[in-house]
């Protein structure tokens, strides 16, 4: 029903562009990058020193509350990184407490339904279970969706892509009104860092192509496809080495930080700094900035810094 709905609505969009239904559902298809951020009090909110849920409460409040992003009756996808069969303290997956808090707030703002999924690397059921995310978000009222077979993904074209021209995107992202991207910050052998843009690899089916054809460029290319409504970077447990899977808890630093922004490039740049890396060493951040996906010049952005 949802997919047909999507196609029907897409057809309607071409006829009556600007009608409320279309705008309400698919404004991300026609909105300008950063258009929304212009009306926000800050381009980036950084929080330190609290529990994951508390930091989100303070951080989102600084941006005007979740209601700025989630309207009554909307369909929301909250996409964590839960690609690995490891428990939360290993820092391999997004913190379940943070996930649950975001879900609760979305539903509190009147979201019709909230979905959580990830195209995992390790066995999907073990990842969903052992990350602690499945149980936490279900309790908070979200629906957990599968993403382990190709049937859930649909072809999309990426007009701005240099290398990645096509991908298969999860249908929930295509059908949702609001897409909240919730990566965990960690070390990564290939992309150097995993933050918000890298986390979008969990939205697509064929990752092998990305790895075989300039990973950094593909990450940046895909970032041009759909900007998330909001990015929340979990830096509570931060894996400093052996990423993205990690070998033991000894790879992890308890950093108790969180970054929130609508701009993926800005949030990834700030995350690199937080991690202790020069953002320029992470090629895909630079490539995405070249694509005008967002801004790396943190010094010119309005940043709210909250210490708890």
């Amino acid at each position, binding site marked *: *029903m*949802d997919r047909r709905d999507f196609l029907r609505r897409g057809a309607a969009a071409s006829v009556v562009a600007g009608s409320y239904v279309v705008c309400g559902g698919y404004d991300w298809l026609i909105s300008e990058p950063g258009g929304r951020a212009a009306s926000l009090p800050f381009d980036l909110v*950084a929080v*330190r*020193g609290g529990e994951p849920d508390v930091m989100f409460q303070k951080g989102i409040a600084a941006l005007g509350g979740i209601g700025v992003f989630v309207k009554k009756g909307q369909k929301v996808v909250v996409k964590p990184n839960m690609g690995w*069969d490891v428990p939360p303290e290993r820092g391999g997956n997004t913190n379940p407490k943070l996930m649950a808090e975001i879900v609760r707030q979305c539903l509190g703002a009147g979201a019709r339904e909230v979905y959580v999924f990830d195209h995992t*690397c*390790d*066995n999907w059921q*073990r990842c969903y279970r*052992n990350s602690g995310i499945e149980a936490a978000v279900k309790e908070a009222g979200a*629906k957990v*969706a*599968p993403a*382990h*077979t190709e*049937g*859930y993904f649909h072809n999309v074209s990426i007009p701005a892509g240099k290398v990645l021209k096509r991908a298969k995107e999860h249908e929930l992202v295509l059908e949702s009104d609001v897409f909240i991207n919730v990566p965990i910050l960690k070390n*990564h*052998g*290939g*992309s*150097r860092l995993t933050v918000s843009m890298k986390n979008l690899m969990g939205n697509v089916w064929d*990752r*092998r*192509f990305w*790895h*075989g*054809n*300039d*990973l*950094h*460029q593909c990450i940046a290319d895909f970032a041009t496809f759909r900007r998330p409504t909001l990015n929340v970077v979990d830096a509570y447990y*931060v894996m*400093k*080495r*052996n*990423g*993205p*899977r990690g*070998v*033991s808890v*000894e*790879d*992890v*630093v*308890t*950093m*108790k930080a969180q970054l929130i922004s609508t701009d993926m490039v800005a949030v990834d*740049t*700030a995350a690199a*700094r*937080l991690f*202790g890396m020069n953002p320029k*060493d992470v*090629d895909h951040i630079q490539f995405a900035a070249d694509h005008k996906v967002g801004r790396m010049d*943190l010094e010119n952005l309005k*940043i709210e*810094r909250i*210490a708890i």
Partner: protein
Amino acid sequence: MQSLKKIRVVVSLLFFFLLSFLFVDLWNVVPVPVSNVLVSIQLVPSITKTLTLLTATSFGLLFVVLLTLLFGRVYCSSICPLGTLQDLVIRVAGRNRKHRWFRYSGAPVALHYAILAVVAIAFLGGSTLLLNLVEPFSNHGRIFSTLVSPIVVLLNNAVAWLLGQFGTYSLPTLAIRSVVIGVTFLPLAFLAVVVYLSYNYGRLFCNSLCPAGALLAILSRVSLFKIVIDEETCTECKLCEKVCKARCIQADTKRLDFDACVSCFNCIDVCPSVGLKYEALWKNKISPKPAEVDTGRRTFMNAAVTSLLAAVVPGSTSQDTTAASALSFDESRRHPIAPPGAISIEHFSSLCTACHLCVTVCPTQVLYPSLLEYGVAGILQPKMNYAASYCNYDCILCTEICPSGAILPVTAAAKKEIQIGKSVFVKEDCVVVSKKKACAACAEHCPTKAVRMVPYEGNLMIPELNNEICVGCGACEYPCPTEPRRAIYVVANSVHQKAKRPKVERLEEAVDKSKEFPF
């Protein structure tokens, strides 16, 4: 006495559905202990496992032996799923006028015992081939895992699609498993033989080819309870002979070959005059006598099976893998990789009866039936298929579930120290070298960091191997994007080795209490 058949029917259907379901349980809804109990009372795997390792499974074997010593071959009619499968065929055949009634035909006893002997000798000599071909549990498992489970996948996905139309993801789709023609051939052929035999000759399979049937036939000769014909009350109506699917009742002479009887109790159920009794031996006034046998068919089948056996040479297991890197790609990949807990290819191959229960339950679907990689003797024994997936580091399901002892139980901690193979890295094929682009799919997935990224040129990092801590799980090989061959791949350890645990060093600062923002 009349209720015996009803009990048998209920019990047999229960076992049939439960045991068949194990092999199509692609959702893993059956808990491991339940599965373990169910398969522990399957005769052949229970024997092979007990020979390998004395575990709780051995109680299952004890149970079956005692059951048979007490009550005859009730196993064949109640517990064996393949027996019930044949009964279903016989029931269908019964609708056909020509096949409605059975006539006595002495079981080819000598042939049956000869098959048991040859199968046993081959097995003890290290070859499971003959056992694989005729053993009922594994054949039943293969019929369901290979032939029925694709249908289950399609049905599941049809329902999932329907539910999806109503906007719910409550039933996830199941991945479609590739169907290899060679793998489906044996189960199909076996099913055809069993259907043909049961449709035309009742339980002839159980009394000619089945090694479990032969073993139980021996035990049932001395069983305490036996079905006997009471010469005083029998009215010679011959109904018992007509309904006997084991064809072991000769009504004319009032003989009943109890060693061929599968204790289905159809005869007792049908007898209008209580002419058949199921009694403890000490009450028996009539000692059951062996009846005349149809020697023509026996000779024919003897010859047929003997020639079949002659064509099969036991043994022919894989040779040792020499230093992996010294071998060319194709040569080193000839050896199959056996799952953790298999100890060695020899151990695995000499015990696995290829029931494919591990193939069914494997959550990552990395276990897949081989064709001839383990040699002719190891046909259809499962191997690790890193083209399709990789072994989840913390998963030990196959080791817990294996009924035969081919994969021995290991703890999750012990599994992490088992090296089933080693990685080989072909630098010039790697994306980092050939395209000068970042990749790291291998290191990303590696659970031990036996593959890790080290600085290469500029911002680029390149994989580096440390096979001391490699477990051979295939997490590097599976995601490697290079074509046509992977730049990193795993070669088998024909004898599994010990992997060192990854060295864990503390970070200088495990807690970052800073309240500063470096931007």
